[in-house]
């Protein structure tokens, strides 16, 4: 049994504990826990067309989570994925507005470049503060999420406001159909290819480059890396920039694909779910891909529950939250349980 296998098993045990806690909460609130889990599984994977919907949510989540994994790996607790995701969507929307009327082969790449740059810049200032003055990145990135949320509300109700829109929620002008990279169902070859490229690039970066090895070392023992002559600055800033750019990329995809416009406070839990995915996957790139599909399924079940099963979608929020509560846990009891197998082998 390798250490990796033990940590996967331990993760699974704590997810089971988290789901048991959810079951208790559901039962306590007067729902049948088994019925609830059955409907969630059905909504996520076992109804007709479920896989397409689950993948639709999984791909952008995977892209953000892969970025979160890079900065966690390097030892930076960047919890600002949500803000970087919003900045990506906002910058892409401004670029689309600015180039409106130009041919699609110009506009689409320009929007992607703008989105990734926006996300990266929103990660850059916490990175600079952290490296230059040691300002805690947990606080700066958390505050960055709120600032980005306010900025999104401001641009959707101000510069980008759709004058024909009505209702309570202000939204931006819709993106012209020629520039959309998918329909509103949100699964298209373009998005799949982008996600596959991100997966390949991140896997190579982590497993086959000096950066990947040094980043993992820096996360565990910064002093040692310093002694080995690596520049903490370059390593640190790169990991902030990569994670920001990927979150920005996911924001761009959500804007140019399934959503087609910006709305104040859209997809408010994207960043948090991506952090969870990275942690559940123990920061491995391949693991992140698989775990994304699971959480993508939960996201699609959140839409299915109230409409098809008549159950509140808050159930999904509770499942995600319970997993968050336990996913970083280590328990002597569980470890002894796992070690028991090792001894008998």
């Amino acid at each position, binding site marked *: 049994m390798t250490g990796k296998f033990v940590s996967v098993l331990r993760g699974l045990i704590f997810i089971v504990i988290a789901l048991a806690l959810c079951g208790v909460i559901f039962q306590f609130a007067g729902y049948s826990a088994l019925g609830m889990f059955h409907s969630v599984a059905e909504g996520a994977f076992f109804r007709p067309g479920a896989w397409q919907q689950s993948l639709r949510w999984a791909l952008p989540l995977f892209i953000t989570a892969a970025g979160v994994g890079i900065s*966690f790996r390097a030892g930076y607790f960047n919890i600002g994925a949500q803000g970087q995701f919003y900045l990506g969507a906002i910058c892409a929307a401004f670029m689309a507005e600015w180039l409106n009327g130009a041919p699609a082969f110009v506009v689409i790449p320009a929007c992607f470049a703008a989105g990734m740059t926006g996300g990266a810049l929103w990660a850059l200032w916490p990175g600079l503060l952290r490296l230059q003055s040691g*300002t805690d990145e947990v606080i700066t990135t958390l505050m960055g999420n709120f600032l980005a949320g306010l900025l999104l509300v401001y641009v959707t109700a101000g510069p980008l406001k759709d004058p024909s829109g009505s209702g309570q929620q202000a939204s931006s002008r819709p993106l012209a159909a020629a520039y959309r990279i998918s329909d509103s169902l949100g699964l298209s070859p373009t998005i799949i290819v982008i996600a596959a490229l991100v997966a390949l690039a991140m896997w190579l970066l982590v497993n086959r480059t000096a950066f990947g090895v040094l980043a993992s070392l820096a996360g565990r023992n910064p002093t040692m890396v310093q002694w080995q002559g690596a520049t903490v600055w370059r390593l640190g800033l790169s990991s902030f920039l990569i994670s920001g750019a990927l979150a920005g990329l996911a924001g761009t995809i959500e804007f140019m694909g399934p959503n087609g416009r910006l709305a104040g406070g859209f997809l408010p839990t994207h960043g948090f779910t991506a952090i969870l995915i990275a942690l559940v996957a123990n920061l491995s790139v391949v693991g992140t891909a698989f775990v994304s599909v699971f959480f993508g399924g939960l996201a699609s079940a959140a839409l299915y529950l109230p409409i098809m099963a008549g159950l509140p979608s808050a159930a999904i929020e509770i499942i995600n*939250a319970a997993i968050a509560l336990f996913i970083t846990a280590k328990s002597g009891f569980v470890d002894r349980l796992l070690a028991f197998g090792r001894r008998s082998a």
Partner: protein
Amino acid sequence: MNDIIVAILRSGTPLIYVTMAGVVAQRAGIWNLGLEGLMIIGACAAIVGIVLTGSFALAMLIAIILCVLASVLLWFVIEKLKANPIIAGLGLTGLGLGGTSLAVQAIFGSQAAVTAPFGVPKLGPAFGPFGVLSIFVLAMPFAVFAMWVLLRRTRFGLRLAASGEHPFAARSVGANPSRMRLAALIIGGVLCAIGGAELAAGSLQIYAQNMTAGRGFMAFAAVIFGAAHPIGSAFAALFFSVVGALGIRAQLLFGDAVPHDLLLALPYIATVFGVWLSGKLRGGRKAATGFAELRDY
């Protein structure tokens, strides 16, 4: 002028109670990002409790019990299962937001806002223009002062601070840091119940889904901005409320000439600036968490 002060006290009081909960946890060495979840549990339990039991005292009791139970769960996960406090705190927040939505749906059959026939008892006409405020507003300065005395002038508070700053030193004088943290989180649970109840039942007497709208995180920002000092953090929370109240007033007076969202952003910008400055002045970094501890190799 009076109505501005009333507005600031109304929005500031819930924030200050929850900030005190954050302060006591921070002192004990736990970055409590579950404040948002605890606050919504307090708000929901207070209103639903009043509707179901018809008694304010019983409703407060329910709110306090639920918030304390949630805090103990957080303590168990952080201390006994060695979970990362930040991720676990965010999890507790999600559990609070989701759990309250689920509970309201289960009890009332819909997720619509719940209105209570009465709320927190008011100060009454003896207080003139401030009579519309609740008793929790009057109690708030005393709570802040009591927190200062508790943390800075009692043996308990000093041991609590030692548990946060130097657990080994705390252990050497016979204090159990883990148990001190439990005490801190339980005190925080009670304060969050009061803060949440004041938010929902202090003036409006309405509970709506996700009505805390990030106030728990704002309280956390106030804790950081105020360097976890009870009085400093209370003033930070008050400052955030003043900015919020001024933002609404500026919009009423000048329309869109003053961007409302920019004013709302001020507290967060101030927090980033404050954290950066305090890091500069203190020199060196006090890490929130050794992230390396999270991973096993």
